[in-house]
């Protein structure tokens, strides 16, 4: 029962911080809220006993990626006047669209057969590092190795893109 309460609280907090990401005017704040959101998501992973992912999420997302975002924001040194805002009508349309998407998704969920079912407690060891490691280095070993190439490509790409070029396209 306490697990339920905890999860409800966690879920509400996740959503609240996610909302703050979108709503806050200043990008720095958005980043901070995003980090918070990731924390809560990590905690939800832990609740589902997906330990490996929880750690990775913590390190990669909340750690590496968000720091990257912060760096960029600081690099660009944006002030508040430059913060662009959408027109009101477009915002309302966006909210309506999002809302109806949500409604539709919920409706779809309502009709499915898995409604109200809980996950299987007996198999909850699959989220452990050992299990996933086994999978990762047997079945998905090729894909895993390929990710390294992807990273190299991304790295080279990022360096190339961010390098200050001589001529600046107007």
């Amino acid at each position: 029962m306490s697990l339920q309460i905890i999860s409800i609280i966690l879920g509400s907090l996740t959503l609240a911080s996610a909302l703050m990401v979108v709503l806050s005017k200043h990008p720095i704040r958005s980043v901070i809220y995003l980090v918070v959101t990731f924390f809560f998501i990590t905690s939800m992973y832990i609740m589902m006993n997906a330990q490996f992912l929880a750690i990775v999420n913590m390190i990669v997302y909340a750690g590496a990626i968000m720091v990257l975002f912060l760096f960029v924001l600081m690099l660009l040194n944006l002030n508040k006047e430059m913060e662009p805002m959408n027109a009101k009508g477009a915002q309302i349309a966006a909210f309506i669209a999002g809302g109806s998407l949500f409604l539709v998704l919920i409706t779809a969920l309502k009709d499915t057969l898995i409604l109200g079912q809980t996950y299987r407690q007996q198999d909850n060891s699959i989220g452990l590092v050992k299990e996933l490691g086994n999978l990762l280095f047997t079945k998905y070993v090729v894909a895993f190795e390929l990710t390294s190439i992807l990273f190299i490509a991304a790295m080279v790409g990022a360096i190339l893109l961010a390098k200050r070029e001589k001529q600046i396209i107007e």
Partner: protein
Amino acid sequence: MAKDLTLLLLLALPLLGFAVNGLFGKRLPKIIVGSLATGLVFTAFLLATSLFSGLHGTQIVHLFNIIDFDQLQINASFQIDALSVWMTLIITGIGSLIHLFSMGYMSHDEGYHKFFTYLNLFIFSMLLLVLGSNYFVLFFGWEGVGMCSYLLISFHYNDAQKGLANSLAGRKAFIMNRIGDVGLLLALFMLLGQFNTLEFLKIGAAVQQNTALQGGAMFFITLSLFIAATGKSAQIPLFTWLPDAMAGPTPVSALIHAATMVTAGIYLTVRSNFLFELAPFTKDIMLYVGLATTLFAAFMALRQNDIKKVLAYSTVSQLGLMFVALGFGAYTVALFHVTTHAFFKALLFLGSGSVIHGMHEEQDIRKMGGLAKLMPVTHFTFLIGTMAISGIPLLSGFFSKDEIMAQALHHNTFVYVVLVLAVTMTAIYMFRLYFLTFHGAFRGGEALKSKVHESGLSMTLPLILLAVLSIFGGLLNLPGLFFKGAAHWFDHYLSHSTFGLSEVHNVHLDFNTSIGLMLFASAVAIGVMIWAYLNYAKKGALAKEDAALSGWERLSAQKLYIDEIYHAVFVRPLLAFSDFIGKVVDIQMLRNGIYALADGILYSANLTRKWQTGFLSSYLFWMIFGLITFIAYYILKLSVWH
């Protein structure tokens, strides 16, 4: 020599001449080209004579299969019987004479070797036509002669003034012939459908075994055959090409457009006699078409001023006469007239050729006159030809025409009366032509007169030979009045070994009627001759200028305006139709329709392009919108199911 070998050699010789002259003719001297062509055709004639003397019964010579499917076989095979051998004799005999004549006539022409090449090819095609043992080979020859005719009519295409007109005349001939060919083609299809073979003998046997074949099918088959015959033999309505075909060199007119090719229609009908016998209605059509043709053509010939045009209309008229005979079912009679006509018409054309040659390419009789002294041989032979065609007694034309008149009198008096009219007109225009050309004063000017000369031996020799034939040709088929033993030799000869003809018997009138008929015909012919002599030679009446013509004369000179009518009724609408669908339907409707479609797509693309605002948020919005619709659709589908 075995018969089949003779036959193949007979066919191969003109082909050889064609090949040799076509390939090397340019480099060979003229005398070799000419004598080679002439010699080969003459050798072919000798071979034909050997076939003729050794003829007994019908023989088929099989060469090879053209198409061999399980049920359908079409062979290149040939048939030797009385009819085909007789036609071969005419073709090669007259052909070699005309070749000889051409050696002199064409001697100044730059296309000398080309001319003999075509001429040999023509002889070959014509031989195919008459010797083939089935309709398919006949059709080969049929189209082949049409092609040669086209080539030879438009032979002088380079001529500065008349070049285009010559080639247009050739085209007209080819197209008109093609219309007839379509008829033959359809007949062939129907025959194939009906009998599954095209062999004459097999069809004949099938017809004899199954007498229930009368009626519709036979009518359509024979009608199509007759359409083919009208095309090739220049009958109404397809006759207008023949006068125009006179644009070709004169020997060509003599060979193709008088003696041989135009009789192909007659040959076709005689060959298919067993079919026509089952279709009396077609025979009636043939009779009246022939009758109309002979009458109108004779009328048109009355006031022509071109020496060759007169002869051309005369040919059309004579061919009509032959169709009248065919219409009565008197096949041998028609063929008899084909033979005599070949003699005297070839003679007349060659004579006119000699005149034209001597007059340095002048064809207008208004510029001639008094040529009798300048060209004695030509004059004399031309006179014989004129007398033969007009039916002066005891010459060949007299007998052959008389046979036809006898048939007409026996079957249908009305036809007889019309024929008398036509025959009278024939005599009138022929004597008019003769007297205007050879008598009176020379009207071509002194400069020309000094240059007029008699033709050389190569041209006069054929004239003399043909004149002899024109005189004595009638002996082939004497009426059974006096020499009972020798009479009707030709009838017997043909019906002896030609399929179907032994079934058909010509009527023979009783003695008194026959005598009366002959006397009447002789009287008419001689009377016309005397009148023409008085009118043209004594009184010196001349051909009138165009402006001075009276009503009926104008009609005759303008050929009853048939060309103009055809032009207005067929040619102009076809061209207009072509313009219409070419410009309006094809370009404006179809192509521009496609373009309009393309424009429409372009336009709609421009419209949809406006959606691509370039604002990421709007794309996202639409994406979400699509997602919603998509999921909503599945939800609805699910809820409908439940």
